């Protein structure tokens, strides 16, 4: 019992250290474990900010918008860092496209950010794979750096309507895992 008490007190201390603007998590009202999971998923241990940076994104078609405009208009934004030379990235994209088409009227938006890649290869790839969700180039790693740096591909970041990073997934995201994440984050 005392170890559990120490554990819960540790959670409170960690919450304050990780993000002081968050309210104190009351251990006596453990009702919504989703809040705890969201807090841990948005940890800054790897430098990813808990809140979405205000970035201007330009798609390869030339459309401009800010990331906050995208999050404010949707329930969930899925930002996927990828490259045409990354095999796991290209394998997961067709399913992202399917989900994009199925969910775009339900407030879920995909945004692909190509890094360390060429415009010609990216353009050729998305035409070949019939990708219709927004894709932008990150030529100087500005977008990647705003998210704390992207060291591996694919890296998929889930952002909610409040501009909070609610989940980060590094590596191949299977259909099953994506479905599970969407079901969990959209409830």
């Amino acid at each position, binding site marked *: 019992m005392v170890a559990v008490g*120490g554990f819960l007190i540790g959670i409170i201390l960690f919450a304050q250290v990780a993000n002081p603007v968050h309210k104190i998590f009351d251990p006596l009202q453990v009702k919504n474990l989703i809040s705890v999971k969201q807090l841990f998923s948005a940890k800054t241990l790897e430098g990813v900010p808990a809140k979405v940076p205000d970035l201007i994104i330009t798609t390869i078609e030339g459309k401009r918008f800010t990331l906050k405009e995208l999050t404010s208009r949707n329930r969930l934004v899925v930002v996927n860092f990828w490259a045409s030379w990354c095999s796991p990235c290209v394998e997961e994209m067709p399913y992202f496209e399917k989900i994009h088409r199925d969910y775009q009227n339900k407030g879920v938006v995909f945004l692909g950010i190509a890094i360390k890649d060429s415009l010609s290869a990216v353009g050729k790839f998305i035409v070949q794979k019939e990708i219709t969700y927004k894709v932008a180039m990150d030529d100087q790693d500005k977008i990647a750096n705003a998210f704390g740096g992207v*060291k591996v*591909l694919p890296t998929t970041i889930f952002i909610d309507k409040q501009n909070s990073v609610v989940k980060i997934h590094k*590596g191949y995201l299977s259909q099953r895992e994506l479905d599970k994440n969407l079901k969990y984050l959209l409830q």
Partner: protein
Amino acid sequence: MATTRPITRFTFFMGVVVLLLCLSVFPSSGQAPKDTNLVHVEAYASHKRVNSGKSFHITIVANIKQGFHINSHKPLDEFLLPTLLRLNETRGIAFGSVCYPKPKQVLFSFSPNHLSVYDGKISIFAEGKVSKDISPGDIKVSGVFTYQACDDQMCFMPESVCFEVPLKIVKAD
């Protein structure tokens, strides 16, 4: 009236330690390896001293960390980045074709298609021939070895390793 045992400092401390240990292994859905030195590259010349008019080899040895692979010289997909050895032009040296090892065709969990890759320890070499007219002396053979590594779940940024190998050119007997 119920009484409660006071929480001792030691027990509280242990609770916090347990918490921190749990947090250190808390999954963030696919942890990237901390060691970014996935491929160790070394360059060698077959001889330290080469007579003018004679041949030698430049060898690149790449030691790929277990669990990782790099694309072969000729990947099966047009978008994949090949492993390449490029030797810079060196006055008085003519280089032949680069010889790459035989790749492996491997199936990974994320794809139904095989990939042509290298793993483990590989050697790539090129023959160089010293011109008969070159003056004796020290030269450096330089080049770039480029590769892009992945494991069975994720990929790492392309890398280029520059190298220089010293050679002493001596007069032919």
